[in-house]
């Protein structure tokens, strides 16, 4: 006998009974909104939370930023616990593990704290809404398209991803692979997915390894800001410069140098500051009772305008921006 996977009942409990939304309620002032990114001192999430800070100031709330030094779920849980103790009104969190943070997030929700996830979602049943930077399809397709352009329509390409278990990257890569099956991509061959663990040095070495194993590589697609920067840096300083293209998702500030020296022709990203901004507004609206996270509810997010909540409490930010030599100087993040 005993409890097995099949027999286990997984009603993870927690949560709160959804109260009815009151679209006419005013957004409260003085709300305590705390941001908990995957880890502190990551330039990308600094930009995101920076946007959050601006929004909280506009909302006249209390902004707080906490986070671990390492991107592990366990340290995040300690911080969630602390935030519960401090009775925050909203926790905006980028989950390091969709499940590991769940019990704590549910404890938070039981303590009447609204939980908004951004960047990397937690399990659906332990958060109130998720700010999606772009749809998975959108990004996957855009990656495939850029790869095709950069490789010159044919040849071998490789992906340099973050950690092997990064939820976002894996789903984008999935979409990309689907896309590659289409006839217009038939001459493109994805030879390998390598993982740099979002660690600069490791990514650098993985890029190196890719070129040694696949000398005919035409392009490296790195759907992570750390990976694309490392790959670009390696290519720009090696004999492969000009022969192998680098593209993917990157931060304009980090990539400016390589765009200008022609190692990188084009890459994409959404505006990360807008994610934090939108998350803060979603949280404030929810804590004020204007929305509950149900599909179809609408709210206004300051300068970004009106948003509608999609299925499963997802709020999509919008399409990614593509950066090239021509427009990169207009961005500073």
């Amino acid at each position: 006998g005993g409890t097995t996977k099949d027999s286990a009942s997984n009603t993870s409990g927690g949560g709160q009974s959804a109260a009815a939304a009151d679209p006419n309620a005013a957004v409260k002032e003085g709300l305590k909104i705390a941001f908990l990114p995957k880890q502190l001192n990551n330039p990308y999430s600094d930009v995101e939370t920076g946007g959050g800070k601006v929004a909280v100031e506009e909302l006249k709330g209390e902004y707080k930023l906490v986070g671990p030094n390492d991107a592990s779920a366990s340290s995040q849980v300690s911080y969630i616990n602390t935030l519960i103790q401090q009775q925050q009104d909203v926790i905006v969190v980028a989950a390091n593990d969709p499940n590991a943070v769940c019990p704590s997030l549910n404890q938070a929700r039981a303590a009447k704290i609204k939980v908004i996830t951004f960047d990397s979602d937690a399990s659906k049943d332990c958060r109130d809404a998720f700010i999606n930077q772009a749809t998975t399809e959108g990004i996957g397709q855009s990656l495939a398209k850029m790869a095709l352009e950069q490789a010159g329509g044919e040849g071998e390409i490789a992906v340099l991803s973050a950690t092997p278990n990064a939820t976002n990257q894996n789903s984008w890569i999935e979409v990309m692979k689907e896309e590659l099956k289409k006839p217009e991509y038939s001459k493109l061959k994805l030879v390998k997915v390598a993982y740099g663990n979002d660690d600069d040095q490791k990514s650098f070495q993985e890029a190196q390894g890719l070129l040694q194993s696949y000398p005919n590589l035409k392009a490296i697609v790195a759907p992570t800001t750390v990976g694309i920067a490392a790959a670009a840096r390696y290519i720009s300083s090696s004999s492969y410069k000009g022969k192998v293209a680098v593209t993917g998702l990157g931060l304009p500030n980090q990539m400016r140098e390589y765009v200008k020296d022609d190692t990188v022709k084009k890459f994409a990203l959404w505006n990360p500051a807008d994610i934090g901004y939108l998350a803060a507004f979603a949280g404030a609206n929810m804590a004020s009772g204007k929305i509950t996270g149900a599909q179809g509810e609408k709210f206004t997010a300051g300068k970004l305008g009106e948003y509608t909540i999609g299925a499963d409490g997802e709020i999509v930010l919008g399409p990614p921006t593509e950066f090239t030599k021509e427009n990169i100087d207009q961005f500073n993040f």
Partner: protein
Amino acid sequence: MTATSLEAPPSKRFSLGGLLKTRELGIVLALTLLVAYTAIDNSRFLSGQSIRDNLLNTAILAVMATGQAIVVITRNIDLSVGSVLGISAFAVATLMSNNQDLPMIVALLAGLAIGAVAGLVNGVLVRYGKVPALVVTLGTLYIYRGITYSWAGGSQVNADELPRHFLTFANDSILGVPWLVLIALVVIAAGSVMMRNYRIGRELYAIGSSPPAAELAGIKVARNLLTAFVLSGALAGLAGVLYAARFGTVDAAAGNGMELNVVAAVVVGGVAVFGGSGSVWGAALGALLLTVIGSALAVLDINQFWQQAIVGALIILAICADRLVAVRIARSLRKRDAHV
């Protein structure tokens, strides 16, 4: 025990020295096998670019391993090297990005100085505070990293903020040898000669071999230990500059967790963790071996998930091989005594 290999009188044909040398020979052999196997699988592993990449990757680790070997030989350990690398890399990168015209030599000196100060703090706490090195440097591992984090916050120095000459330094070469590799070679050679042929080196071995006896022998233990820690710190600081130049992007987490790699390199290189034996160039070979293992696994296209496990197994294998050699030496010593 290599220490003794050097004294073997050349007159003796089958001397202990010859046997003892196998300690480093083992690593060389393992390295050769690995490279040969990988090269057969993928000949590009022996291409100029690949060799260059491997040497460049080894350089930073080898510089740190040199300092670590010196400290471990004195029966101490320096776990703070990863954090010292971080603080030095960030400080120097900030310095260079704010002063675009500073020459490279200033960057190198700044890194050395920052590292030396960090090492001095370690040394003073170990020697005058009478706190075991493992405790001190585990503590300063946290402290130095904490300082870097507090200072850097989330900021990052990006490649485009750094002066051109600083970035190209990592790749520029003279006579085909990249600067980075050259610096590492100079550091290793200087370290080896110091430890083998100079009084200070022999005294460091003596201290590690028996600390109380060193006091009684009138060796200036305090001065020597401080020197060892300052050297280890300074070399970690130097490694920080090289890191910044090579990777271009520096944030507060640079070198995080590197201490275990460095200690692994030193141990694999045949330096006994109980002090008194081993050599600097052995440690450097250990660094090379570890780096080559890493890149060979990538080239051999071994499943990402297996790589770490294989590295661990190889480390253990290296220690076992080393032990085998030590046992053989002990046996030959006993045999010789029996004839006396």
